[in-house]
């Protein structure tokens, strides 16, 4: 039986269509269930409230699927994403190892001239070594990502899973702390080109790798015994 097309009923119908659009594919049967009840409600006000609730359900379920979804994407998209996320950190690591100022160029003369005996030189050397150590996660992550993309081998090692997330974050925190000690509040003045370059570096070398690692871990099966975050 069709109901008279009052304004409230038309808006309610639009809400029901919105709910159907928003509802994830796996829940589409529930949209039909809500719709069939809607068609049985005679009172326009009740039908309107019902439809508003259904729209809210559609939004909730969509958000839920986005939060708890498996975030799986095509390998053709995942490969460039992983390159974008981990290649800058890998290049930094390479430069830190064998660049012009890399660790392999360090020798007694260089150490004495630029670090030991220079104010703050030792701290700078330690931070440089720590940065290179943390940046090691770049090539490791690239390797793990492409092993998963090409060979479908998941990242099962619990320590590696933690390191993939923790290392870029630690690198970012360390860089920001050192910068803040060095330049004070100017660190956060994005109007200055220098600070802007610094934060661009943090974005590329800390934020993006952490985000890429989170995505990689999300789509890689968890080791046995780890809590499953998809439970409700």
């Amino acid at each position, binding site marked *: 039986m069709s109901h008279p097309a009052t304004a409230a009923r038309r808006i309610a119908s639009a809400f029901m269509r919105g709910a159907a659009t928003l509802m994830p594919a796996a829940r589409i049967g*529930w949209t039909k269930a809500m719709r*069939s*009840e809607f*068609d*049985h409600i005679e009172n326009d006000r009740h039908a309107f*409230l*019902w439809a508003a609730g259904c729209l*809210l359900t559609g939004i909730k379920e969509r958000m839920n699927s986005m939060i708890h979804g498996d975030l799986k994407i095509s390998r053709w998209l995942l490969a460039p994403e992983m390159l974008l996320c981990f290649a800058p950190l890998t290049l930094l690591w390479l430069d830190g190892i064998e660049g012009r100022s890399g660790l392999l160029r360090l020798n007694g003369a260089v150490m004495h001239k630029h670090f030991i005996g220079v104010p703050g030189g030792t701290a700078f050397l330690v931070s440089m070594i720590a940065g290179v150590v943390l940046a090691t996660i770049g090539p490791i992550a690239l390797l793990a990502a492409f092993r998963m993309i090409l060979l479908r081998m998941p990242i099962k090692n619990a320590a590696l899973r933690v390191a993939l997330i923790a290392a870029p974050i630690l690198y970012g925190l360390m860089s920001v702390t050192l910068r803040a000690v060095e330049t004070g509040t100017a660190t956060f003045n994005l109007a200055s080109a220098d600070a802007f370059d610094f934060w661009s570096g943090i974005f590329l070398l800390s934020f993006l790798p952490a985000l890429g690692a989170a995505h990689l871990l999300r789509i890689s099966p968890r080791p046995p015994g780890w809590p499953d975050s998809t439970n*409700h």
Partner: protein
Amino acid sequence: MKRDRKPSAQTLSLLGVLLQQPRTWCHGYDICVATRIKSGTLYPILMRLSDRGLLEHKWQESPESGRPPRHVYRLTASGTTYARAQIAGNDWTSLPAASRSRA
């Protein structure tokens, strides 16, 4: 590892209503009226209970001609056990009045 969360007051209210006649199929709108839970809260709860195998549902032809079939719900055997346990383990007076009066 599955978390065993304490059910919300609305879930308890819904379980209370379904438990009154565990073998009877109920319509979504009727449950809404009985529990005074809005559809925006009711359906996510129904979905979760169904996902956990505590609720079964099916389509039922409407007795009135020209009306679309309706989706109906009832507790499964494990759902009935779960509902009894949850309601027994909770302070019944904390539930909404609508479901309390039906218990």
